[in-house]
């Protein structure tokens, strides 16, 4: 589904990714863990096509397409979702308006009919319920005045509505209390734990992995994957630290 080959990337001229390779098949959940500065967020942004994140080598193939050749909005329409570590506030644009524009832009790009206002609200209500986010919050401007936990849950509501093929979740667990962590974890499972979908979870900690059990765990250090294993690797990291395991 997603094949990353020998990826090199720089931010502001500084090399951050140094030959990262990774393959995620449909139906799999992969976790990427690593210390601060290892390049985890950079990997997420490079996959999402954020301006300023320059690919200097390697390739990324997504569902048979050259992902890096696509504009950011085209990547979304192709089925890629990027969960932001710091979801962006957009004053003056309501969640409902934002998500309806987004969903219908994606549908249009895929040659599908737009969803009517009524059908969209029904879908939004269902997904908000899944993440236990008050529907009233979706009528408010995007992320404005939301707490850290509400922002992350709102991101998962967005993911539920847009229903991507593949998701890259950049520290979706940061800033969540224990209850919110469970709700978000269950949300990820319900929306993405399917045979035809793939998940790349980027996280510092093992705790989200208690809810979303990964099939593979990778350790990222200095811009490349230095160790891969099963779920037990995450536990080992938690016990021994990155330095001991990645050495």
């Amino acid at each position, binding site marked *: 589904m997603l094949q990353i080959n020998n990826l090199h990337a720089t931010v502001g001229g500084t090399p951050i990714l140094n030959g990262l390779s990774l393959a995620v098949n449909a139906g799999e959940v992969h976790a990427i863990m690593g210390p601060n500065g290892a390049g985890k967020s950079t990997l997420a942004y490079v996959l999402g*096509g954020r301006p300023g994140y320059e690919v200097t080598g390697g390739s990324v193939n997504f569902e048979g397409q050259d992902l890096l050749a696509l504009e950011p909005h085209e990547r*979304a329409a192709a089925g890629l979702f990027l969960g932001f570590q710091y979801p962006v506030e*957009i004053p003056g*644009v309501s969640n409902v308006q934002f998500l309806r524009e987004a*969903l219908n*832009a994606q549908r249009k790009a895929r040659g599908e009919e737009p969803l009517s206002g009524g059908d969209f609200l029904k879908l939004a209500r269902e997904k908000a319920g899944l993440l236990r986010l008050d529907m009233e919050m979706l009528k408010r401007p995007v992320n404005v005045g939301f707490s850290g936990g509400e922002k992350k849950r709102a991101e998962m509501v967005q993911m539920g509505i847009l229903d991507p093929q593949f998701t890259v979740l950049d520290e979706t667990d940061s800033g969540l209390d224990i209850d919110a962590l469970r709700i978000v974890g269950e949300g990820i499972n319900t929306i993405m734990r399917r045979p035809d979908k793939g998940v790349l979870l980027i996280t510092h900690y093992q705790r989200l992995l208690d809810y979303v059990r990964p099939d593979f765990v990778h350790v990222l250090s200095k811009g490349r994957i230095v160790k891969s294993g099963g779920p037990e690797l995450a536990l080992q990291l938690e016990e021994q630290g990155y330095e001991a395991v990645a050495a």
Partner: protein
Amino acid sequence: MSELAALPTWRDEEWRYADFTALEALAPEEFGKWKEIGLAPGETRAKCLVLDGSGPELHRVRLTVGEGARAELFAVNAGGDYTRLEVEVRLAKGAHFQFGGVTIGGGEATREFVTRTVHAEPEATSDQVVRAVHWGTATGNFLGRIDVARGAQQTDAAQDFKGLLLERGASANAKPELEIFADDVKCAHGAAIGQMDEMARYYMAARGIPPEVARKLLVRAFIADAFVALEDEAEQEKLLSAALDALGDVA
């Protein structure tokens, strides 16, 4: 009294950002023309204007607002050349003046709102919200003068200006001017100029919204403040789409 003699020069404060080359195309008598509108005590009247002509335009309105009356003026200034809307307002006791204006456009044109609000008697209120969105080498101006007369206590006047410059080379000027001769008054003014929030645009792109749609949504959110006070939602929508139509030619 003839006002023909009073042709503006760049030395006049309220003309300091005007485009005098464009003004030369106007007949001298244009400068003496004022549209006079009077509101009776207790009356409420709202007016919406879209200025989107291709040549230089000068519109001058004089509003006399009676006791307890409410005058509302909402305008989109999207002229193709120098376009100026000038409003003089005189507020009687407890009267209110609401102004919402958007200057929007590219090219080289200057588009401006110039208001002079006279709080002539006590307890009058005024609220002015202006947004400027420009690109190319265009300029958007808001010159807002507020006069609080002697004895006009409990005046509450507010001005809020924000500029959004989409390209290097565009500019915006905000010039509040307050003359206050009473001591129990509130007069607030604020001005800010910035650029498009690139992170918001990227966030929208990451959700599948193409750049031109994202820009439109963000500009719409930015200018909407100017028309929030307009109760008629259909009219509000008309003004917003007139303004957003002007966005079509951004590079």
